[in-house]
């Protein structure tokens, strides 16, 4: 599995302050490795008493604007805790530079040996993450496939609403594009046929 994940999120077009929230720093320990970790959570520990193996300390007050919603994501061969980390990494990228991005603009990022290619499409953002043979250019293929399929299903650059309305169909398309962490179909016509259970090679 060399394609790590793909994620579709809402796009934060108008940053808007909703509620100032306290950020809490915590220290926690990995039970297996014994390693300590420091993290940030923006939930008041009062609301979740004693649920974490963590020691809390309030350090920072952050303005939380969190309108970005994860609409769809698939991870391949990643442990659950790393999935969350990847998700927050991706959302941070969105915050940085997708606000003014054009629809056909593709962005690239990397973390160690892992590549991220992402783009905005209407109201949603699509991220693809991969490594080894799925380098940035192969991810472009994946990304193009996914955005093409979304556009195809939604008939235009989707709003979040439209995306959600076509959720089932989009899931079927993505199921054809990426199978078990590998790119499968890229051709729109083939995807269309396969999601409708039509013969592939008919004229």
């Amino acid at each position, binding site marked *: 599995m060399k394609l790590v994940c793909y994620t579709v999120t809402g796009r934060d077009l108008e940053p808007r302050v909703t509620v100032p929230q306290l950020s809490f720093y915590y220290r926690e320990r990995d039970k297996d490795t014994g390693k300590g970790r420091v*993290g940030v959570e923006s939930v008041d520990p009062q609301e979740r008493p004693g649920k974490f193996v963590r020691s809390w300390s309030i350090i920072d007050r952050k303005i939380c604007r*969190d309108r970005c919603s994860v609409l769809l994501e698939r*991870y391949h061969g990643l442990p659950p805790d790393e999935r969350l980390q990847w998700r927050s990494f991706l959302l941070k990228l969105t915050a940085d530079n997708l606000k003014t991005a054009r629809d056909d603009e593709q962005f690239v990022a990397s973390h160690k040996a892992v590549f991220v290619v992402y783009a905005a499409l209407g109201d949603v953002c699509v991220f693809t993450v991969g490594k080894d043979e799925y380098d940035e250019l192969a991810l472009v293929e994946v990304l193009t496939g996914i955005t093409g399929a979304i556009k195809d299903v939604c008939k235009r650059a989707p709003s979040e609403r439209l995306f959600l309305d076509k959720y089932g169909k989009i899931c079927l398309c993505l199921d054809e594009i990426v199978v078990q962490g590998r790119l499968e179909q890229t051709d729109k016509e083939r995807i269309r046929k396969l999601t409708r259970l039509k013969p592939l090679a008919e004229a």
Partner: protein
Amino acid sequence: MATLGGSQGGSGGGGRESVSLMDLISADPVAPSSDGSSKRPPGVSNIQLPTETSSPARVLSPPTVKTGLGQRRKKPLTYSQLARLLSDLAGSPDLKNAQKQLLVQVFPKLAVYSSVDPSLVPPLLQLHELADDRHVVRYVYYYLARVLAESGAHGGTPAGVVPTPNWDALATLNVAGSVTRADVVPQIVDRLIAEAANTDPAAHPRRVAALKALSFVPVTTEEMLGKLYMIVFKILDKVADAGKLRRKKGIFGRQTVDKESATRSSLQYAALSTLRRLPLDPDNPAFLHRAVQGIACADPVGVRHALAMVSELAPGDPFTVAMAVAKLSLAGGSLQEVLHIQDVLARVYLARLCYILSSAEALDEKPDLKSHFRTILYQLLLDPSERVCFEAIDCILGKVDGSEGTEIRARGWAHLITAILRFPEPAPVPNKDGTPKDGVAAPGKEGMPPKVPKDRQAPRPRRPQPLIKLVMRRLESALRHSSRPVLHGAVRVVQEMGKSRAAAYAVGGLGIDEDAHADDSTTGDGDVENEGSRSKVSPLPSSISTGGKESVSSMLSSLMEAVRITVACECVYVRAAVIKAMIWMLAPYESVDELKSIIAGELADPAWPASLLNDIVLTLHARFKATPEMAVILLDISRLFATKVPGKIDSDVLQLLWKTCLLGCGPEGKHTALEAVTVVLDLPPPPPASLSGFTRTSTTDPKSALALQRLIQAAVWFLGENANYAAAEYAWESNTPPGAGLLMLDSDKMVAAANSRNPTLAGALTRLQRCAFSGSWEVRLVAAQALMTLAIRSGEPYRVQIYDFMHALAKGGAQERISDLAASNGEDQGASGTGLSSVISPMLRVLDELYKSQDQLIKDMRSHDNRKEEWTDDELKKLFENHERLLDLVSLFCFVPRSKYLPLGPTSLYLLNIYRKRHRIDAHTGSNDPAVATGISDLLDPTLAAGGLSELQPLYAQPEAAAKPATPDEDEKEYNEYHDIVWNIPAQETVNEFLGGGGTEAPEADSSDEEVVAARPSVSYEEIFSKGLMESEEEDDRSSGGSSPESSGAFSGRNFGSNRYASMFAPSAAARTSWDKPAASFRETKTDSPTAETSGVQWSQEEEPSSVNEELTQNEDEDLPDSDTFSGNALYDFVAGGDDELNITAGEELEIEYEVGGWYFVKKKEAGPDGKLSGLVPVSYVSAF
């Protein structure tokens, strides 16, 4: 991110405005609005709620479920309602309406949930059998595949989303009784297998879908695997000869595809695709045969899968694969055809396959075959897709999976710059669409991918050209691309080029002359005629020097110019890649100024995330490893990072770079290397907090100030540890007699003498002295430690110089003791003294002891000389014991080689050797050798002992080694061995991982620069040092107390831990708290000798190593529970209410890992239906045994 993490279905954190994704989808399915914000569900405020409250189970009271068509549903459906609806509709007599409703209402919404419950399988299978709507059936396959995929990885969702329990499903769902995954999987598999065997042409799309779903079957048994292989091979058997699509004229003259051949080709594709997802079976000739056959498949994706499998098989058995492929490619030209199929990844795998086969040694006897594959590889350089072209370049450079050796990379570079391309005569090859296309087209003027005109005339012959020229053209054109991924990819290829080039330099002897002119026009034409249809590689004649020709170096410099321009890209990741590429392409003899100015400019940009900067520092590591001669240059570059962005880089990684470069830069570079480190000490100190309002924003950032301070501490420690090595000045090699230093107490003379003898060490000393006076208390503390290390390891006059300096420091502290005590936190900024007196006093005490003992020895020797007496055994014993005691003392402060170090001065060696010889004491183990301690060594017969000793020789280092002056090699070795232990810091792991091309783990939860300080797992230096010191003091007490009772009283300063700095590290806390690895390794080396045979200091015998380790592995958080698990029973059912909670049913056996705040973290024996294995449950729900 918790607000995003905990939503239901796991498909993300709800929708906007705290509405879950499910709510949104269900909100208004019939009349969607294009503008979500204007048609928000009523009653939803903007205020964000914790996600738990937004879960359907809590927000909604379950609405009554009606299964009527056309019913508009405003309220979201819960999972259980969906499940019930599915089951009702599947059994509905009105199938047509039911299918419609399934398509609109059920299936799209079910897709939101992270896992598909096994209880849904019976209705799905029912639908699979009955439904006639293709869309419905497609959904059925989708969900069946998901059920299979989830059963593949129990305990976590495999290819899915962030796992969250379907709490509402579990709470209310009881549609089909207790159905488990184990029950349904065989049912699904049987159904799919039957479907896959269906030969009805009308059902073939379903067959394709069934084959795809089958590839999700968890292959747990050999039997299942065999079954799957059988199905796939059976299909391939029937369709393998499908070959090309047959086309026929349609009714209106349109071309149509022959239906039967189309069916066969898509079946072949489906089978190949399934085969690819099954494990490779290299021992099965049928596997290879079918895969190779697949290359001729009419379906482009099928070809891709076939090529992928063949290229994965090729490294294992290149000869067989090459033979199989050659048969196919030579006869029908299938490989050539792949060049023209649309699928990019297929061509990528082709490039890989061709490289593996063309470079396989097993094929040396078939040069024509090799050159055939190489030709195809070269043709791929002209591919319109950058991905394929870059893959081909990478392959030529010798990089396939990143694990290639230097030799291969070097060969790749040599090949790149010497090869000449002679393209085959282009023969028109019909492509898949039936239109003739040219085999290879010449690159356009701009190096753009060839645009092949449809109606080409007679192909014109191409002139042979150097390979590198083509590569450079492609890269330069890619670097002008506007797409960021292409830029990133191109720059990465340049980076790979740099790596291969560095490898070529490292290997050497390849006779690469980059200044040789690479031009095509002068190469002999004879070869072209002979090898008309093949590319040929021949070495470049280096004698060509006619004007107007391009040399490799000129081409490289123009490429690098293009790379440099790319640094203007607004994407910081591309810029990082550019800098890495430039670091790799830097030649040892080139000027580094330009790169430095680029890096300096980049570092001024605050947008750079810390992780990227650290990546570049790691690249410096990698570059050093490839070309150690560049140590000084690399240090020069690393200096920029240390000075410009001290707050963002990992000081551990930087330290490791200093260390490796110091080791690698050779005797003449050591001074420069040390200078690169000491420059850190000249950085302006972080301003005190009170002044922050008046200084620039960047420097007032407390985190970066803290990071800078840590970096300075690291530099000071580094200086202390390594100055002696860098200056090649060791006490045990010093020629100055020990007393000489004492004669130079005039400080001016001393400094002058020190300077003249060893400017490197003198320079380091001066810097350290400055640090001990200025800077924060933490830095001063480290500086004092460093000075002590220097004092112990250096000969005169450095030792006495430091001794003198420390006296001054201690006095300064003593005068202000009262005010220090009043401050009592030990952290005053030093205005009223250095705050170090109590730290220094034990150091001074040890130095005092050293000097005293040296004096005493001189006196004793003199008196013996005067009296012309031999030394008696008792006197020698006393001397030896004194020597050992001092060694123990000294070892508490820093590492010294016990066999060589002579605390009593070089003159003592002779006497010590007499005693050692007499009692057969090994210089390494000293009196801690059990044989010596128990007196057994004395009982040995001298003759036997001689024999025994010679046998023991390999075990122990030679005792004579102490007498011999150490050769530089030995020094180096010992230093390395020592540092392997000292530097056992986390950075080592990071660097090794980087060098190994690893680094696939997820980024830190919060990897922004602001978190870099807080997120660093390593222990801060003040902790290391304070604790190291504490421990040394305690040990010191014990060891010196053991040897001479009266001396213990003199160490009055040692109780500083409980007294002056009680608030920071009380002894009890220090004893209980354990440290992370760095601290541990540091302490080991600070207080103990690193090797087993030299670790015989008294105190370490008292403390069992295992207990130390246990202590070390404990976490620093004391309130964390210990890891002992115990078992328990669930008393009641508990439904999880959040991500980290766990569903349990009454009576279930659980393993309780720990308790925290009224919750148990428990582990189930088997994962529940939601796939979760462990999580939190309330204490009261579990009875613990």
